[in-house]
């Protein structure tokens, strides 16, 4: 399989505070990688470095053959092929659902207006929201917003999708509908990097689970292995705590 994302010795500090301390990670075409780990361990920062929403302090990131850490690379072109879904949805508040989806493809001259409109409807069908095309974001539930946000990213026809805790801001009864859309994407062969606390999703969908702690990758393995037989003490401790929390919730 082709390499899609190649991260070499990535370091990132926020004004002296080191947040990522030497990350090496390769993600292949069609792979679904879930990143788990305690709060503050640098999961979001790692994801945001991949599409250069954060500038890296040191190291190299290659996406689809483009060295995005090189300042001569046109990052906007690279980003067209990397979709990103945020915890807080970030739908454009002043635009209808349909226009949210159409904005980038039309503005970046990837499609004409009518092509984009058609694509928007098709994508809304795919996420089960074709009747919301003319609604504004504030008229949608959290789960609906997140499904629109996914559709908006897909409109650019990316071949990589990044998800940063896409269900963390949702009421429990809405998590399923979003995970369902993501599952379908995975089945369709999308390359996905998902930061998540949904251990069930990671277990069912991921090809590989990465456990991060304190700015480093502590352990990575296929989900069955990592969840049932973690090697590192920090992984064990984290999993025990998370699974216990789940137990208490039920």
């Amino acid at each position, binding site marked *: 399989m082709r390499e899609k994302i190649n991260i070499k010795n990535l370091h990132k500090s926020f004004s002296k505070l080191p947040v990522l301390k030497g990350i090496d990670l390769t993600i292949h075409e069609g792979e679904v990688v879930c990143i788990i780990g305690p709060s503050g361990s640098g999961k979001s920062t790692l994801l945001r470095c991949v*599409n250069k*929403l954060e500038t890296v302090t040191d190291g190299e990131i290659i996406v689809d053959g483009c060295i995005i850490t090189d300042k001569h690379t046109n990052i*906007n*072109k690279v*980003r*067209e092929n*990397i*979709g*990103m879904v*945020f915890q*807080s*949805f*970030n*739908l*454009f*508040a*002043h635009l209808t659902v349909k226009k949210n989806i159409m*904005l*980038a493809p039309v*503005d*970046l001259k990837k499609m004409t207006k009518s092509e984009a409109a058609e694509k928007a409807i098709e994508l809304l069908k795919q996420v089960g929201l074709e009747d919301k095309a003319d609604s*504004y*974001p*504030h008229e949608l539930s959290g789960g609906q*917003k997140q499904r629109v*946000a996914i559709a*908006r*990213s897909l409109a*650019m026809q990316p071949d990589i999708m990044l998800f940063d805790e896409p269900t963390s801001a949702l009421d429990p009864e809405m998590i399923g509908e979003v995970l369902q859309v993501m599952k379908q994407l995975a089945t369709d062969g999308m390359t996905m990097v998902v930061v998540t606390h949904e251990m069930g999703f990671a277990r069912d969908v991921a090809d590989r689970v990465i456990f991060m702690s304190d700015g480093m990758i502590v352990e990575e393995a296929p989900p069955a292995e990592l969840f049932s037989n973690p090697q590192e003490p920090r992984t064990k401790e984290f999993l025990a705590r998370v699974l216990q929390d789940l137990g208490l919730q039920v």
Partner: protein
Amino acid sequence: MDFLTTINEATPLLLQGLKITVMISVMSIVIGIVIGFFSCLLGLSKYRPLRAISGVYVWIVRGTPMIVQAFIVYFGFPQLIQMLTPDFRLSAFTAGLITLSLNAGAYLSEVFRGGIAAVDKGQAEAARSLGLNSSQTMIKVVLPQAIKIAIPSMVNQFIIIVKDTSILSVIGLADLVNKAKVYVGASYQFFATYILVAVYYLVIISALMLISKYVEKKFNYERKDKY
């Protein structure tokens, strides 16, 4: 003389003043919006010298009384320029317009900056993550929302501009207040005349508020939700 007679007598004169007040207000609001917009863009630039230009401009305007600015523009600059071209003159209207526009520009620059800063950062991040460059992001995503946020403070600023025109009567601008002074000087009808002037200002500003309510409605795509 009773109130009605005063109104009858003073009205023609006051209407002349009213015309000047409205004209200079509207013109400096329009020019001020343009200046304010560019000053705000300079202030957001990644180049330090450009940011400094905007910062110094706003600092000077905010840090000095408008009456002093008006004196500098009306009396000071002509004196300077007359050293080169001796018969240079600046009318009170032009000087007033320059002063008021520069004032409006500085305050509106701050209003716009505040509006942009109030747009959730995630909006721009989402736009950038789709591949839009920084100006596309600004024009298509941030500004439409920033303007909506800024409308109430903009209107507030417009109202201040209208009222501030009255200060310019000290350099001889033939505005509403100036004309009222002229009439009062001859008739001694202080109460009736100034009540009438107050009513005129109330009418102009109420009209402004009505227009802005309408504009605000046009921009109202959401009510309370954050995302």
